[in-house]
């Protein structure tokens, strides 16, 4: 684990740095929604999330970021990205992932973090092999996996929309979750996505994070834990402030409000990171949108459970 970041003198706001890989090439399915969600959910807690765009040719310094995001794109745009990822960023990305940096890779980005992507025609795109998995596109005639999708993740649900022609098969990689409704990795084995350390690959977009606030917060708390280490509690968390608004900064008052110590480990049935629990936000709208997808997939009981997370 990297050294806990020093408290910067004179800086009252905690800062996280998000590296957004290939924002110009991989931005097909509302990937901006994922970035916006992370940014706003940090901001509403008084944490500043700086987004640094990493394009083709930019090196990836594993110490310069606290979390990484890579989205999905069209096949035409993916070839130069695959090449750059392999040639320019692979060592930095590997170092970051082995150092437990949270990484979210959606759709095309997920495919490129596995061993390879075999398109319907043309040469294989070489991936990084972070996930022991591979993807094969069975040609234009094979049906695409398209539709609303729900999976179970850590005892809770994740919902999204999937649209992929490639079928991903897992080797030793752990899936992100189990399919409740939808296709998932390959429409056969009931798995969806892949995880390795704190890297998450998934086909869920829609966008993924806005309707899955618990997953967004999981990524944020992993990043906080990793970058600010165990010392966060003494330095940042003693304030005990709670968050009361919908993005309006009355609660900021120049104080540190990002973390809610009292709520820690008290809420059974909800995934709680043992070290860091973020201040809860008013997520009624998020959970209603989440539950609406579950209901249209016929998962009424899951929808009731999800609404209770409000």
């Amino acid at each position, binding site marked *: 684990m990297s050294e806990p970041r020093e408290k910067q003198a004179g800086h009252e706001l905690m800062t996280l740095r998000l590296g957004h890989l290939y924002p110009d090439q991989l931005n*097909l*399915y509302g990937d901006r929604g994922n970035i916006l969600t992370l940014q706003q959910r940090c901001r509403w807690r008084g944490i500043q999330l700086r987004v640094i765009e990493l394009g083709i040719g930019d090196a990836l310094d594993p110490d310069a970021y606290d979390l990484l995001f890579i989205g999905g794109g069209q096949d035409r745009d993916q070839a130069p990205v695959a090449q750059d990822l392999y040639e320019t960023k692979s060592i930095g990305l590997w170092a970051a992932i082995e150092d437990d940096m949270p990484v979210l890779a959606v759709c095309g980005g997920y495919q490129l973090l596995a061993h390879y992507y075999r398109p319907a025609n043309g040469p294989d795109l070489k991936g990084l092999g972070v996930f022991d998995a591979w993807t094969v596109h069975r040609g234009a005639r094979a049906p695409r996996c398209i539709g609303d999708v729900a999976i179970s993740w850590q005892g809770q649900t994740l919902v999204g929309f999937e649209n992929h022609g490639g079928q991903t098969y897992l080797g030793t990689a752990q899936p992100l979750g189990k399919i409740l409704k939808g296709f998932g990795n390959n429409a056969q084995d009931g798995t969806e996505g892949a995880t390795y350390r704190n890297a998450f690959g998934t086909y869920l977009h829609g966008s993924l994070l806005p309707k899955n606030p618990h997953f967004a917060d999981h990524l944020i708390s992993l990043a906080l834990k990793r970058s600010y280490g165990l010392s966060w509690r003494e330095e940042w968390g003693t304030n005990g402030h709670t968050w009361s608004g919908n993005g309006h900064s009355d609660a900021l008052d120049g104080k540190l409000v990002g973390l809610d110590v009292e709520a820690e480990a008290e809420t059974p049935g909800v995934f709680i990171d043992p070290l860091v629990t973020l201040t809860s936000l008013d997520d009624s709208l998020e959970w209603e949108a989440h539950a609406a997808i579950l209901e249209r997939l016929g998962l009424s009981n899951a929808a009731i459970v999800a609404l*209770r997370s409000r």
Partner: protein
Amino acid sequence: MHENRPSRAERRDMRKERRGSNKKLTPTVEMHESEATQTTDADEVSASDPPVADHVLPPARQVNRRSGNALRASLAVVGGRAAGALSRRLHLGGGTSIAGVVAQGLYPDIIGHLSTQLKEGSILVTGTNGKTTTSGFIAAVLSDAGLRVWRNREGSNLTRGIAGALVIRALPNGKLRRAGQAISIFEVDEAVMPRAVRTLPTRVAVFTNLFRDQLDRYGEVDSVLERWQQTISTLSPETILVLNADDPTIAGLGKHFAGRVIYFGIEDRTLDLAGQDEANERHQVMDTRVCPTCGSEYTYTLRFYSHIGHYHCPACSDERPKVDVAASKVENESFDRTRIRVELPGQSGEITVPLPGLYNIYNALAAIATAQALELAWEPTVSGIEGFKPAFGRGERVQIAGRTIRMLLAKNPTGLNEVLRTLAANGNQQHVLFVLNDKIADGKDISWIWDVDFEQALANFATLTVAGTRARDLALRLKYAEVDPQALVIAPATPLRAERKKAPVTREHARRGRQRGNHATLLQEQPENKIYGISQALNSAISRTPEGETLFIVPTYTGLLEVHHELERRGLAPRYWEETGP
């Protein structure tokens, strides 16, 4: 809309609208054969000979006419028309689609059989945005030029719509009525284009633009492009292509075409995004960015919106083609009146486009270029475009309780960004009702709303209402754009089932409720926010729009149909049709 005394063409249009009005009284979702009866109008039939009558038609791939085909065609026509009549009688719909479905079921090649009888051939219009408005402009120009115009209308642009449009004009013997002077305009879905050119004798093919749209239905932008390239390789060189020079993907379609290509584009440098807001430029959705020949990223010297502009490839010779029809000057006169100066080979002139937004300038240019392809005179081009009535949902206007309602269809990120930009140009403090549906015709994937630049538009909203099957998602999008929650009302299509049941209050639940205490949700504090369905959404939006002001309704495609249905139910849509009279 017209302050001046209406021109002859406008008066004719108004009569058409009136004649169409009793059909509008029924809750139909599609326009239907009114076009066929309209064109028997004396002043149109007696108009001078069509200036294009002696053009040779491209040899369409003729169907093998085995002896049984005439019989099957007449069977298909009778069956289709009966189904259409039944559907109208039962008020199930306009009947065009069902007539097409039935006819195609009885004789799959009915389109090929009927369309080869069209003496003046067919104009096909395709592209992501602007199909309906562009074909509307073309129809207005052609009918002002004295041609008998047939169209498939109202977005019913799958093959069954084409089949239906032909069948309702056919006689029981399988022959088209008065096909001699008729020219047909078909707006064709991007994905249907290959099939359409195989069956229709295509005289002019118009490609407006290519953006991401309904990724679930069409696959990605690239796969649409691939289909189009194949389509064009099968076209006869007699066909004339009309292409948007400012969209690199569209312009590229002309590169290897053996026949004539007419490019249209905008040359007004003052419209460049770079001269405007930098943030605005940065967040534009770019659906084409790399050169298809060498894979390098395009360099833009001018960008108008998204990837539309003046571009060239820095690595190879690929660049924006020289345009044949150019708007050299674009001047906004008011919200929905834009004066453009048009440069044609050897002449130039001015036209007022009676619709809002830059995208409609492109639609008008496409129509002007089509008129050039058909060698029509300049006068009908001007009168056709200036007298144009907004198509269904593309800027149409309704009066309701002292407020004006205007509908601006937006079905993909670029379309919605342009609508927001058009609203911004109209000043701030707008009242807007968004209707976001995710039915098949809208595209089931709504992740594109996260690519729309609501952040830029926040200052322009006075009140906001979100409705539709995905209202919750749009509300969430607006929440993350930090829309003032006081200004926002959410009206999902239906309540959640889980909300309808009384959720059991568990101990844990109660404790967490206490713990949050002051986190009481907006929705609980404001029970009037719990409204559902399009009717309540409309009521709420109207009541929050002060009298005398305008409520803009920005729906996706099926949202538009629902709003229209609702207005018709309230007897407002017919009133609108009457109002357009003199």
